[in-house]
């Protein structure tokens, strides 16, 4: 199992985050800033962690992230709910 988080690059305008921050502030939370990201949990058939990492990177390159505006973080999940 691989966890891929795709988020807007630093400095890129995040309107959804800004609107969320404003709403949280209206509700009385001491919020300074919100950045929104998207998480994909991918069940993938692979031999080992290295291969999982490499495949996830390819997935980001080919579909999950647009390099003009997105950064991504990949985490290979092991143990319960993850790869054995």
């Amino acid at each position, binding site marked *: 199992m691989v966890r891929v988080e795709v988020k807007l690059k630093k400095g*890129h*305008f*995040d*309107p*959804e985050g*800004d*609107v969320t921050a404003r709403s949280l502030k209206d509700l009385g939370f001491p919020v300074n800033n919100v950045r929104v990201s998207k998480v994909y949990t991918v069940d993938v058939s692979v031999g080992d962690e290295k291969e999982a990492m490499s495949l996830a990177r390819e997935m980001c*390159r*080919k*579909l*999950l992230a*647009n*390099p*003009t*505006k997105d950064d991504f973080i990949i985490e290979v999940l092991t143990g319960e709910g993850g790869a054995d």
Partner: protein
Amino acid sequence: MDLERAKACIARVGGTNCDLELKVALEDLGLRTEILHMKEIVKKGLAEYQLLVFPGGFSYGDYVRAGAIWGKEVHSKIKSELQTFIEENKLVLGICNGFQVMIEAGILPDGEIAEVPKAALANNASSKYECRWVYVRVERGGTPFTEGLTNGEILRIPVGHGEGRFLPESEEVLRELIKDGCVLFRYALPSGDAADGEYPYNPNGSVYDIAGICNKRGNIMGMMPHPERAFFGWQLPEGSDSLYGDGKKIFQGIIKYLEDY
């Protein structure tokens, strides 16, 4: 070629819209037009068509990113077919979500169907879905899509999108686009000057007020505004005595190109 022999294909998947408006507009100008689902395009190919249109809408629910799933489907299912189509100097047009699809498929800005996109159509700077009439300035007339239009001419066409902020991968990509005359349309003030980022004239915060671009050869064009929603006079918000709106001018360019093809 004889226009009677020419044919347009409007591609469709779940979530596309304005495909019918496009068909009505093109047929009004005498071009036979078929709306084909991607599955039919995969089976049938594109050989019998001279114009391919990716229409607006919310293809595949805008999942992952607007236009991303359909853009990648273009890669996995019709890449070589589309490459041939483009090399034969046939026309490819993307409107709104169709433009997003073409960016995600890497068809624009280069026309090469690149694996990794060199630009993005990001969330509008206003944080809103922008549904409004805008002034669009023609930056370069005389291309297949701007045949009969003159530089500096102003068109009134509506936009309707949440992700239309054109962002090039780098300053260099933007410089190339400008240098090569690939910026066809920019958002403008009513005076005709470029909007220079001023909201709501530039409705989404697009870099360099970019509303539409083409490849170097000019046979592939993507634009966020919807010319098919400004084709007939009765579609204009204030009503009009004239039979047609400004959107027609873009389709007339296409027709002229196909007649000369």
